[in-house]
């Protein structure tokens, strides 16, 4: 198939395919009149690249997966180099989640402080509180009786 058909079937652009070729990720054969020529195995490589990119992997991260498929493995992540990319990505995600959790805790603490200040500055308003309802707390009546 020609480059336009491949791009359509993989949901990408001919420009992206030429870029992948320039990076050595998706080499194309040429027909006698010089057009790029692709087959189903190229579509498979391309889908592997697109799937990983959708998860947030950079283009270079996809190279071990592509090479794994090219070397005849049934799946792009059947090779040790691909597993190393997965592991590195997980570590990166863990670090990111941890940073976000710190930021979240900080924002929550700021909000809590600000809510107290706002509530207490309402003119004439009572301080915010929760009342202990008897049905919520039946043992209290026994204890006071």
């Amino acid at each position, binding site marked *: 198939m020609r480059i336009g058909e491949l791009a359509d079937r993989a949901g990408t652009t001919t420009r992206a395919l030429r870029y992948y070729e320039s990076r050595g990720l998706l080499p194309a054969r040429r027909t006698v009149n010089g057009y790029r020529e692709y087959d189903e195995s190229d579509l498979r490589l391309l889908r592997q690249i697109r799937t990983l990119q959708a998860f947030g992997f950079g283009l270079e991260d996809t190279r071990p997966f592509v090479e794994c498929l090219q070397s005849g493995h049934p799946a792009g992540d059947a090779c040790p180099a691909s597993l190393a990319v997965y592991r590195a990505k997980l570590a990166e995600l863990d670090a990111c989640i941890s940073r976000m959790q710190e930021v979240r*805790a*900080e924002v*929550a*603490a700021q909000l*809590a*402080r600000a*809510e*107290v*200040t706002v*509530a*207490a500055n309402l003119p004439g308003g*009572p*301080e*915010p*509180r*929760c*009342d*202990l309802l008897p049905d919520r*707390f039946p*043992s*209290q009546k026994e*204890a*006071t009786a």
Partner: protein
Amino acid sequence: MTSGAKHALPSVTDATFAAEVLDSDVPVLVDFTAAWCGPCRMIDPVLAELATEENRFRIVSIDVDANPQTTAAYGVLSMPTLTLFRGGEPVKSLVGARPKRRILADLADAL
């Protein structure tokens, strides 16, 4: 900025209240609190921050749901209730969440 929310207040229970609060050598501010009470969560970081700054009294929290005896003994009906204990007796109670500045101002005559 330092966050007080990371340092939870020490908690007491019906079982430890006498030893931790009533028999304390220093005054103790007891925060009667409940996990389901929004204003209690609002005041938690304020009290945690206060606890690191105050040397005139200690601050502890007690969960009213888990400790009905102490809650009933001091007639706590709303949370948060902040009660200052000195020499085994409650000397001042504040009901409702408020900023740190107001807590200190409202406790001033009892300190």
